[in-house]
């Protein structure tokens, strides 16, 4: 398989499509915000300016107050001044600035992106060209971050997370409003929906007033995101929760050790060596805290929106079905206050300096009471568990209903032990391996998910949505065999949540294994969350008796899509074909062959009946069972 450069296929006509009205998603190439070079080169500029000013300081002081400055001759500015070559230096600086500006301008000019019904594509670079295409139905989340400087200038950075390592598509920088709008449009296109509700256009009160308004507006504008439920994290609780973390305990222990050692040896010199560590720890807390201020979790139509930040803000939208595991956990120190946190596993692993951001984005709720946990689960589970239960054509209410069992069980079981909540827990002999938690350590199936209840000291509950299970393993070592217990590991994509349970009765463990394996296959077959609103759109089209509009309006050239080998046989275009991974194409887990099938499903008239008629992903009944073929 070779990369075929060739001319890009002509942008498809998008008449009648919602995208046609959108300025940035019309399939044409667009450039980034004109201030991008300034924002990207801004740091360098500030450093240079700082250096020059630092050198000029003495000069300026002497200029205004003659005879006071130090007369050292090593100063380059002084050297220039005294040798009368100011003109040359200024000329050089101007030329350098012009060249740099020209280079930045060129780089900005060569940096373009486009969004069609199927893909988002970015090409950049002057000498070394890069071209990256990402499929919209593989989007794992869209993040908009606004560092302080960018925020003042009314710009924002948009990052489209894709599954895989360093597979993100970054658009830095866009206009603040354009970024919001673009995210909305991309999500609409990715969801498979064809209609977009007309959004209220915010009126402008002049450029300056707009900037000021935006700078002082809260991070989350409820009117702008159409959120139906919002959970806010109380800042006081956030501070307290951070002070009660394991890091604090470690720091306190370190301080105690220091005090003891100083008291014993009488040498206080060691304290000076500690100074950088103190600064580091303080910075850690301040950073962590300022990032978590104004933390909100909101339920929008296109998934969960997690936003935070006071000065530099950041918010991410996770479409439904992009969360692979959820844990609700309680560190020991939080126990007296009844606080919990909620963490998730995601398929994306952002590189390019966003590693700290990645850590934050795997936390959904940094701290909250049981009621907050329930609210958050109500927000995130319908798209995960509910869609596996109620089928892909379910309405929001049905999704919520489908996930209500999971939410109820988790809510009831946060602190329970024994058989309560219908959990199958470890037998008494499991106490050899789980001396404190054997009565709590258990599992339970609910509709659409498997729940693990773990830990008596560090309590946690793990929820793995069945459509996201990658594989499942049961194992038994010699000690476990002697105790007639076994452990089960439900594999999900890597992240802070590990769905592993040990010390279960061997029979129970085997039932858990076989049950998970069977249900995971069934759930994955019915799952359509990669195009989460397609069915909704098709139903709407059917009821209006309108001519169905292809969802992927790029269908004619979709086979030549991201990998350019979509028309190949299954063996070549299959998973092993994808393994070669080209760095410039952000489709590491891609399945180009699904492109045509997808578009095909979209062009068919939607039957008003039940959903399994044209399942877009898994034509279960069409393929012969493998057993028969063998």
């Amino acid at each position, binding site marked *: 398989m070779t990369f075929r450069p060739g001319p890009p296929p002509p942008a498809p006509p998008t008449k009648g499509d919602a995208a046609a009205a959108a300025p940035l998603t019309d399939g044409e190439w667009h450039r980034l915000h004109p201030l991008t070079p300034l924002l990207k080169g801004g740091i360098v500029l500030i450093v240079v300016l700082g250096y020059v000013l630092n050198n000029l300081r003495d000069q300026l002081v002497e200029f205004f107050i003659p005879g006071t400055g130090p007369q050292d001759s090593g100063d380059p500015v002084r050297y220039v001044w005294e040798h009368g070559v100011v003109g040359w230096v200024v000329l050089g600086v101007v030329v350098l600035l012009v060249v740099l500006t020209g280079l930045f301008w060129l780089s900005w000019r060569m940096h373009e992106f486009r969004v069609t019904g199927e893909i988002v594509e970015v090409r950049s670079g002057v000498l070394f060209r890069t071209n990256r295409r990402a499929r919209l*139905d593989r989007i*794992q989340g869209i993040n908009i971050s606004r560092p302080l400087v960018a925020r003042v200038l009314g710009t924002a950075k948009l990052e489209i997370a894709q*599954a895989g390592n360093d597979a993100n598509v970054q658009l830095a920088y866009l206009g603040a409003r354009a970024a919001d709008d673009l995210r909305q449009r991309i999500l609409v296109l990715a969801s498979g929906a064809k209609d977009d509700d007309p959004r209220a256009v915010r009126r402008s009160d002049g450029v300056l007033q707009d900037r000021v308004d935006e700078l002082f507006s809260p991070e989350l504008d409820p009117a702008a995101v159409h959120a139906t439920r919002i959970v806010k994290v109380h800042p006081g609780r956030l501070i307290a929760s951070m002070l009660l973390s394991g890091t604090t305990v470690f720091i306190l222990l370190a301080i105690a050790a220091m005090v003891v050692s100083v008291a014993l040896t009488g040498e206080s010199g060691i304290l000076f060596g500690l100074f950088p560590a103190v600064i580091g720890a303080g910075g850690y807390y301040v950073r962590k805290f300022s990032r978590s201020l104004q933390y909100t979790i909101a339920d929008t139509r296109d998934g969960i929106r997690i936003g935070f930040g006071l000065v530099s803000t950041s918010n991410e939208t996770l479409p439904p*079905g992009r969360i*692979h595991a959820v844990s609700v956990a309680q560190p020991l120190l939080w126990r007296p206050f009844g606080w919990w946190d909620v963490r998730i596993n995601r*398929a994306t692993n952002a590189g390019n300096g966003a590693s700290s951001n990645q850590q934050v984005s795997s936390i959904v709720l940094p701290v909250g009471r049981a009621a907050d946990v329930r609210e958050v689960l109500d927000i995130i589970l319908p798209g995960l568990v509910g869609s596996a239960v109620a089928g892909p054509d379910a309405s929001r209410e049905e999704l919520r209903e489908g996930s209500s069992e999971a939410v109820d069980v988790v809510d009831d079981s946060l602190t329970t032990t024994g058989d309560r909540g219908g959990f199958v827990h470890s037998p008494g002999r499991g106490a050899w391996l789980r001396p404190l938690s054997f009565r709590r350590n258990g599992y339970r199936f609910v509709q659409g998910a498997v729940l693990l209840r773990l830990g008596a000291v560090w309590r946690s509950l793990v929820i793995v949505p069945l*459509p*996201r*299970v*990658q*594989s*499942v*393993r*049961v*194992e*038994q*070592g*010699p000690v476990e*065999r*002697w105790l*007639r217990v*076994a452990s089960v*590991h439900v*594999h999900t*994509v*890597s992240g802070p949540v590990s769905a592993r349970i040990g010390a279960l009765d*061997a029979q129970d*463990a*085997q*039932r858990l*294994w*076989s049950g998970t*394996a*069977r249900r*995971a*296959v069934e759930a*994955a*077959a019915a*799952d*359509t969350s*990669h195009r989460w609103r397609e069915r909704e759109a098709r139903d709407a089209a059917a009821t209006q008796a309108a001519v169905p509009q292809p969802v992927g309006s790029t269908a004619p050239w979709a086979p030549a899509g991201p990998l350019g080998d979509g028309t190949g046989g*299954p*063996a070549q*275009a*299959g*998973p*092993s074909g*994808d*393994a070669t991974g080209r760095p410039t194409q952000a489709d590491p*887990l891609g*399945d180009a062959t*699904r492109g045509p099938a997808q578009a095909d499903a979209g062009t068919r008239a939607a039957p008003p009946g039940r959903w399994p008629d044209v399942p877009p*992903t*898994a*034509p*279960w009944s069409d*393929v012969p*069972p*493998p*057993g028969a073929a063998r």
Partner: protein
Amino acid sequence: MPLERLDEPGLGLTGTTWTRVSPKLVWTELVTTVVVGLVITAGCVLFAVLNDGTGSTAGLVWVLVSVVVAVSAIVTAVLTPRRVRAIGYALRDDDLVLRRGLMWQRFTAVPYGRMQLVDVNRGPLDRVLGLSELKFVTAAASTNVRIPGIVAADADVLRDRLVELAESRRAGL
């Protein structure tokens, strides 16, 4: 206390026909075990000699360590044929089930639709014996499903078949 193993009825695998790996895999495993065991034992013995053999405490510890290493290597080597016989895989309707291990028994089920790619690896010993190792990768790093000791021609056929199955059952991530 009766020793209960993970069994097929308990796992709902009754009637599953397991495909066993080639018996020739025993040689690969044996050679690996013996070589690794010998190297580590030799290292420990060297340390023991450098520490005056049984003369000093440190030397005595090293002697004991080398004895333990040697014994465990021998036990592993002796059990190799049984361990190889315990490796088996089955292609069920919707997933692949792999079983491995005697002492540490484990069963892994991977739905076909979850396979992202299939690797075929052949080490030098495998090549001499005409064997291949199949490795399956899913989006979860911990899945780590490897079937060693498949006759090379069969491995290619099996890979193509699995890729085909994965393609027909492809769902989202």
